[in-house]
């Protein structure tokens, strides 16, 4: 009998996971993984935050806790404290009771639920033709999230200027001006992935002005709050500024990186509405979407974050842990740039320290990337994106020298 799945084609593997896979299978003792975006210590090891270990012990020891279902929208104390992290304790929007949230499975889950809601309820019901703009380049899963949510028109907006290795502001503003009204724009709140290039405050103000005037929808993706500068509030400046400008908006938050809780899938979709009544109706419809996707979210990670954020001592300890990670990244940036300049590697390398967050868009071309992978067992993305966390004091010389070689030898 013919199989029902006889026609199912083999799909190409997700790139970023393939890189890690290939790295794992490489026998070269000098190999370096600069692919997937997860923090590593200077020993090249994953790091479970000390505050996380502490809170886990508290949870395991607490016999009063059980594994009952969370509400559909998630753990209430998680949702509210997570939104406060993004918007600020004293956010007027929160005080005005027009901020709500949906606990989701990581940042991906938050984007997904937000996208599904927009496809059903934004810009006329069941509107699949509203253009969704994602930055060029952007996290490679943005496209798939919105396409799978049913949007038919996902487009790039100009963002990265490869020549000057910085923000293409005029291109960005130009795309904002020419976008059809009500288009949805996915903005990276800070530490842009993959370029590490963020707009300045003044540049954000200009973006906001156009978006307000042209009635464009603001959908922030905030996966690195705390990780960019080491300071939570600084990293949330753009999100908070947009709120002062009166936008109704979504902000997809991830606690994968800043809490190191990658595999617990801790995310939060923060919703800022015009007023409590609109918020109420929006949340009721979010419930319907969640119910047919995962029913209710996983409790462990959310509990962990909620306990931490709601306890002043633990909260303080967490902020320190975040700063530890951010500081190590900053020192690796400084170190890599210094070494490349010392080697007199052709080109300019100040973008390494100007860029912010976990990633750096090195500017290496696909051939040079291939050289690094094949000849040096240094694994990075085809786009030239490297994860700074993969660098350590022990491997940075090898990496710098290898980059030097690739630039000199490979066109």
């Amino acid at each position, binding site marked *: 009998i013919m199989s*029902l*799945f*006889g026609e*199912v084609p083999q799909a190409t593997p997700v790139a970023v996971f393939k890189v890690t896979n290939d790295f794992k299978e490489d026998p070269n003792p000098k190999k370096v993984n600069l692919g997937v975006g997860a923090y590593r210590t200077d020993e090249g090891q994953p790091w479970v935050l000390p505050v996380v270990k502490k809170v886990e012990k508290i949870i395991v020891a607490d016999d009063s806790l059980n594994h009952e279902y969370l509400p559909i929208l998630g753990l209430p104390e998680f949702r509210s404290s997570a939104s406060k992290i993004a918007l600020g304790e004293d956010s007027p929007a929160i005080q005005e009771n027009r901020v709500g949230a949906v606990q989701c499975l990581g940042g991906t889950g938050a984007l997904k639920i937000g996208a599904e809601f927009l496809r059903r309820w934004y810009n006329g019901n069941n509107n699949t033709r509203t253009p969704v703009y994602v930055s060029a380049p952007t996290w490679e899963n943005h496209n*798939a999230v919105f396409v799978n949510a049913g949007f038919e028109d996902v487009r790039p907006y100009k963002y990265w200027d490869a020549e000057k290795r910085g923000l293409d502001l005029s291109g960005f503003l130009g795309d904002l001006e020419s976008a059809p009204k009500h288009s949805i724009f996915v903005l990276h709140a800070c530490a842009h992935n993959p370029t590490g290039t963020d707009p300045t405050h003044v540049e954000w103000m200009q973006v906001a002005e156009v978006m307000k005037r042209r*009635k464009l929808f603001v959908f922030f993706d905030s996966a690195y709050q705390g990780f960019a500068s080491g300071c939570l509030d600084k990293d949330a400046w753009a999100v908070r500024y947009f709120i002062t400008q009166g936008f109704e908006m979504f902000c997809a938050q991830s606690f994968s990186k800043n809490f190191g809780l990658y*595999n617990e899938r801790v995310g939060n979709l923060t919703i800022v509405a015009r007023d409590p009544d609109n918020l109420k109706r929006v949340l009721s419809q979010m419930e319907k979407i969640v119910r047919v996707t995962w029913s209710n979210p996983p409790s*462990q990670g959310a509990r962990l974050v909620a306990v931490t954020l709601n306890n002043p001592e633990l909260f303080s300890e967490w902020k320190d842990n975040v700063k530890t990670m951010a500081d190590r990244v900053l020192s690796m940036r400084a170190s890599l740039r210094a070494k490349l300049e010392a080697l007199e590697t052709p080109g300019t390398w100040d973008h390494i320290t100007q860029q912010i967050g976990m990633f750096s868009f090195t500017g290496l071309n696909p051939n040079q990337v291939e050289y690094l992978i094949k000849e040096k067992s240094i694994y990075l993305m085809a786009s030239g994106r490297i994860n700074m966390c993969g660098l350590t004091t022990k491997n940075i010389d090898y990496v710098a020298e290898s980059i030097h070689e690739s630039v000199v030898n490979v066109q």
Partner: protein
Amino acid sequence: VKFLKNRRSLPVYDWNASSPLCCSSWWAGVQMGPPDPILGVTEAFKRDTNPKKMNLGVGAYRDDQGKPFVLDCVRKAEALISSKQLDKEYLAIGGLGDFTKSCAQLALGADSEVLKSGRNITVQTISGTGSLRIGANFLSRFHSASRDVYLPTPSWGNHTPIFRDAGMQLKAYRYYDPSTCGFDFKGTLDDISKMPERSVILLHACAHNPTGVDPKPEQWKEIADLVKKRDLLVFFDMAYQGFASGDIDRDAWAVRHFIEQGHNIVLSQSFAKNMGLYGERVGGLTLVCKDAEEAKRVESQLKILIRPIYSNPPMNGARIAATILNTTELYNIWLEEVHCMANRIIKMREQLAANLKSEGSTHNWEHVTDQIGMFCFTGLKPDQVERLTKEFSVYMTKDGRISMAGVTSGNVGYLAHGIHAVTK
């Protein structure tokens, strides 16, 4: 446009100022969603001040004190895991390998030819709901032969919106006979015989939700035969393995029989109830394929479906489940505990039926003990349900379904009294 420099704090937005944004919300057209029929019951229950109130709505197990029950094997597994100091790195898109392997083994049996030949693909999912959803998405994308999914009447309330949202068309087949509060075997066979070839038929593997009515093995055999004749794609939903009879293998009998008969099934599993891991969201989705090569292709496509929804699944619950399934001592404790939970339910059924008799009810309450699993389809009509809720503070869904898990030796008498009062 003027930009303020040297501001010390951000300005507060003035809604009254004239601005394109001040007048209306993006969401003005968003309707208030109707309350969830099952979860709405719990909300109402919470508001009730009657000390005798009973929540027989949502299907979560309760002990004989009416308290949530954390299994001992779960606590032990957690302690074990905690001592290992594992990292929190992302799982693969398809989930924790130790989990998916043992999950498939639990359902199919350790000696299953399917497992030996590697022709199944099993991915970790967000409990039963997540499993059904990914399965539905997969069928929607790759099962081009048919858009139709046949659900038994009645079925779990969330089945319909899940499949619909995934782009499938919902159809129904007769299943429950209200006149007997039992299985409408003839109606089921009749309807299956009329299903267009290649349609998808969803079957509850055991402990049918909401009716508690399961086919007998002989009936399953006939269903399997007929389904094969009609060349239907079988989608099993197994949310209660172990919970129905108390025996893991017995409850998986139908699933294994279908596979032995050559059906390449789709299977959703949940560990919410049988391991009490509700909020940790532990589940599996299995597709039995023609061979290992096909399983690889299917796996690659499942990953493409999963990634834009949540990237990869949560670790905690899967790690607990895997530890239990793969540690002999814990596995044995688990089997005992599942057995206990199922037994307590069975006992409550017996006590309810006995109490109804001693209340003087002349109705036939055999179905209370014939039905199996967490739920009992009492046969109560909506107006009787309403009275039971209003006059006795007994909360249940409008279709007359009660969760036996919410019944205790302390309140079964009160429940019988109330049911008798509204049905005499």
